[in-house]
């Protein structure tokens, strides 16, 4: 199964380990991601959109136009890119006025977008193209007894009009992947709460209040780790965890893994190949627990 792969800016910087782990597990699942040549920033939710909506849609359109010639579905690992590209794609398919204006901007650069591309998240590929059974068959290392809190966040499942593959209120796709690799999911009430996203940059205290929620409830539910499908959520939950601990005077120390890193552990892939040494909160205790199995 081949896909046109849109990495996105985070994947090339802070979230590299998410992709390292994805590429490592893909070999076991017959999934091939072919990078879209010369891709550019999607527009990042409302970072560019609030400043200039037409520019944001055009940035996404350039990527979609390049991808269209590849004749494959576009796949991204990032929930924010998934949302931003999908929103632009919908508008280009449904709003003739926008389509006309965007065409003007991209046609002169020699690009054309007919509107035939499907934008999908990697979790959709695992759920619907690969299937949980195929994932189960590749398990080599037992994750028995490992308790995982799946954190869906927002843009993987929520917005209307995107290529929906899971329930926005009670999503289960990650729960099913976690169960397929032999780990346990824990119930905690915050799996679809918002982490505050880019408020990390502009309103850090608001973001910390928002991210504290899932960290604390997952910890109280006795999770060994949280898993996420989104680089922005990962940044707030993992890289900012120390700041949240000191700001509120609480102890969390909860490892946060990308969903691909958890799958990779179950497939017996060495932690280093999964980039687990790049996670800010040490997953040491978790790795110890896996080793003892």
């Amino acid at each position, binding site marked *: 199964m081949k896909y046109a792969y849109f990495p996105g800016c985070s994947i090339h910087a802070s*979230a590299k380990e998410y992709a390292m782990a994805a590429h490592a597990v893909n070999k076991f699942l017959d999934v091939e991601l072919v990078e879209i040549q010369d891709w550019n*920033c999607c527009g990042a939710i*409302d970072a560019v959109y609030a*400043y200039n909506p037409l520019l944001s849609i055009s*940035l996404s359109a350039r990527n979609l136009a390049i991808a269209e010639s590849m004749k494959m579905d576009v796949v991204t690992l990032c929930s924010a890119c998934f949302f931003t590209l999908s929103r632009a794609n919908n508008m280009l398919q449904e*709003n003739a006025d926008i389509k006309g*204006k965007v065409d003007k901007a991209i046609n002169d650069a020699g690009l054309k977008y007919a509107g035939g591309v499907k934008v999908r998240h990697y979790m959709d590929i695992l759920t619907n193209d690969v299937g949980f059974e195929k994932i189960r068959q590749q398990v080599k290392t037992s994750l028995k007894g490992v308790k995982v809190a799946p954190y869906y966040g927002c843009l993987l499942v929520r917005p209307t009009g995107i290529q929906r593959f899971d329930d926005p209120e009670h999503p289960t796709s990650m729960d099913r992947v976690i169960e397929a690799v032999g780990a346990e999911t824990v119930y905690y009430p915050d799996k679809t709460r918002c982490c505050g996203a880019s408020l990390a940059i502009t*309103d850090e205290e608001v973001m910390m209040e928002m991210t504290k929620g899932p960290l604390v409830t997952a910890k109280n539910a006795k999770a060994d780790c949280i898993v996420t499908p989104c680089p922005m959520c990962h940044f707030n939950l993992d890289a900012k965890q*120390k700041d949240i601990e000191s700001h509120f005077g609480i102890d969390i120390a909860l490892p946060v893994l990308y969903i691909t890193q958890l799958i990779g552990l179950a497939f017996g892939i060495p932690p280093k190949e999964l980039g687990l040494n790049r996670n800010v909160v040490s997953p040491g205790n978790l790795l110890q627990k896996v080793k003892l199995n």
Partner: protein
Amino acid sequence: MNNNQSHQVTHETPDPSFIEEIRKMLGGDRILDCIQCGVCAGSCHARFAMDHSPMQVIKMAHLGLKQDVLSSSTIWICASCYTCASRCPRGLNIPAIMSGFKNMAMKNNVPAPMELKPKFHKTFTEIVGKYGRMHEPELQMKLIQKTSPKALLHNASLGLRMFRKGKLKLQPSKLDSSTHFTEVFKKAASAGTTE
């Protein structure tokens, strides 16, 4: 951080053209369908940091209170999580409406309660225009200049944490421009501002 002390709505003269302006915005066409049920207000994960709830902001928009809407912290705090939109029984795209208000506030030079906000959007867009991709350290550096030494130190600590883990990419990732990124960016940017 908490701006939840509901600030007094001013007695500004209602602007009857405001609602038509909103209805022309992307995602704003359904604003009059709001029934003030409060699902958005009750669902909002960032409500604690807003002066008015999303429901109140929409009512203020119905009433033509343009200045009150555009100067509220609500429109800037909205993190586009889409919880409200996915639950709205009337199908309003509330985060898109909030983005539209941010856009209007920036175009009309209405000061934001959080001064970093408009700068964030502008700087983010400029960096994307420069490299084609986001370069996070540059965004952080440009946004921090005006704030306190304490904030600087705090950011340095995060930077170090990221650097040690190989998560801080000092060099920006650039495009080879084979498909004329700059041309697309410039054309779309000017088409978008003259809207």
